[in-house]
């Protein structure tokens, strides 16, 4: 009984979201200024986070997000509501990121970046510590993020897409299947293999680190 009530609630939420999407799309077609602002407010952050995790490069991610929204604005007339607006925008983001990665491997693989530390390239606002967290937490969290970013970069892009969409963007299997245009079984398999590959990469990087050894010394 509890399950059926939950299902009913989720169905209603889905219907409401769908109606919101259609209303937003209609307002976009009419050129409403508020609709444009709302679209950016709702999707610029998740689209940027997705692009950044897929490409692991801030400037590339920024370019991709601009391309994504350009396509969204120009193709909004063709949006028929067969999928949710979120799924549609994420699909465009994944495709654009895929194109950007392919272009990168073709054209910029030979370039050498003098400034390879992503921490140095970040804006100063991004480096300000959160007042609610201790410096240790911040350092640990930052280090953890860098390790995961590097591990993500090393795994197969096909698996990376699935893991990022599931664990970072928090999409359901059905939505991921729709975005990647694959079956549910394939999504499940890719997520499983992606997580395994990520775990192996992280374990490998932890093993490669030199252990911190504290040797007590007496005063002479």
């Amino acid at each position, binding site marked *: 009984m509890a399950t059926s009530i939950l299902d009913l609630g989720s169905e209603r939420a889905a219907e409401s979201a769908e109606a919101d999407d259609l209303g937003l799309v209609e307002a976009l077609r009419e050129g409403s200024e508020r609709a444009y602002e709302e679209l950016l407010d709702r999707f610029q*952050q*998740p689209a940027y986070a997705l692009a950044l995790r897929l490409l692991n490069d801030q400037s590339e991610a920024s370019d991709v997000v601009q391309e994504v929204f350009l396509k969204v604005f120009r193709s909004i007339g063709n949006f028929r509501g067969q999928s949710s607006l979120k799924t549609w925008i994420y699909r465009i983001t994944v495709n654009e990121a895929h194109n950007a990665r392919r272009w990168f491997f073709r054209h910029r693989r030979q370039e050498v970046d003098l400034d390879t530390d992503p921490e140095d390239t970040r804006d100063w606002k991004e480096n300000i510590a959160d007042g609610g967290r201790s410096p240790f937490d911040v350092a640990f969290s930052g280090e953890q993020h860098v390790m995961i970013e590097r591990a993500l970069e090393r795994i197969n892009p096909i698996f990376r897409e699935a*893991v990022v969409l599931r*664990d970072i963007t928090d999409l359901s*299997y059905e939505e991921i299947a729709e975005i990647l245009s694959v079956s549910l079984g394939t999504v499940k398999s890719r*997520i499983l293999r992606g997580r395994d590959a990520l775990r192996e990469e992280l374990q490998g990087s932890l093993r490669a680190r030199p252990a911190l050894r504290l040797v007590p010394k007496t005063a002479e």
Partner: protein
Amino acid sequence: MSCDHVQQQISALIDRRIADGERENVRAHIESCSACQAQWESALSLRSALRGMAQTEVPASLAAKLRVLASHERVRQLSRVSLPARLRNFTAYAGLCFDNLMRPVALPFAGGVLSALLAFGLLVPTLSFPHNFVGGPTFFVEPAGSTVDLAGQTSEKINILAPRIQPVNSPYTGYTNVVDLTIDENGKVVDWTVVSGRLTEELNNLIVLSRFIPATTFGLPTSGKIRAVQGPIIVGPSYSFTVRS
């Protein structure tokens, strides 16, 4: 239930994509097996860490670019909403295209026209045109039978006939006496040379008594030379030619 099978199911268990009966069995195994327990905790920890990476701030520069992009695209969208808006947009677009096309040409074109006008204006006064035999009694002669003042002396008057000094390329042929005349700025003959034929008394009188429209340079009369012939007696309109200075 083997550890391999359980570890294969951990990913599905985290995402709640596992059947109810299977889930209970997998959970029971994880609680009883330390290796699978460690794997489970590791998977949970990794998922938690990945979740934390979703909180990525959009760079301010990107947010600004997106707002500009949205503004431009909104204007573009508005221009396509209705037929009048589309027409307005098309007209503006066509005007812009025309301007873009013509702007690079406009300056050279204007410069070319002005240069041509300037060059023409400078050249026109020095140009000499052949002869104008059509209309206009611009060849100045005294009418037949009239009296003229010879060299400003009013006491001596001579009767002359119709003009008989004509341009060398006049339509009349059969002439024999050809002279080169030097005309001053007042239109009077100041010197002459017989090129062919002979200087008859009649021709001499004609040369002395004829008056010409002098050549002009920049609008001012000037002296010049012409070649002329002694033609037949003409009754009717006279002819003119310009003196080449």
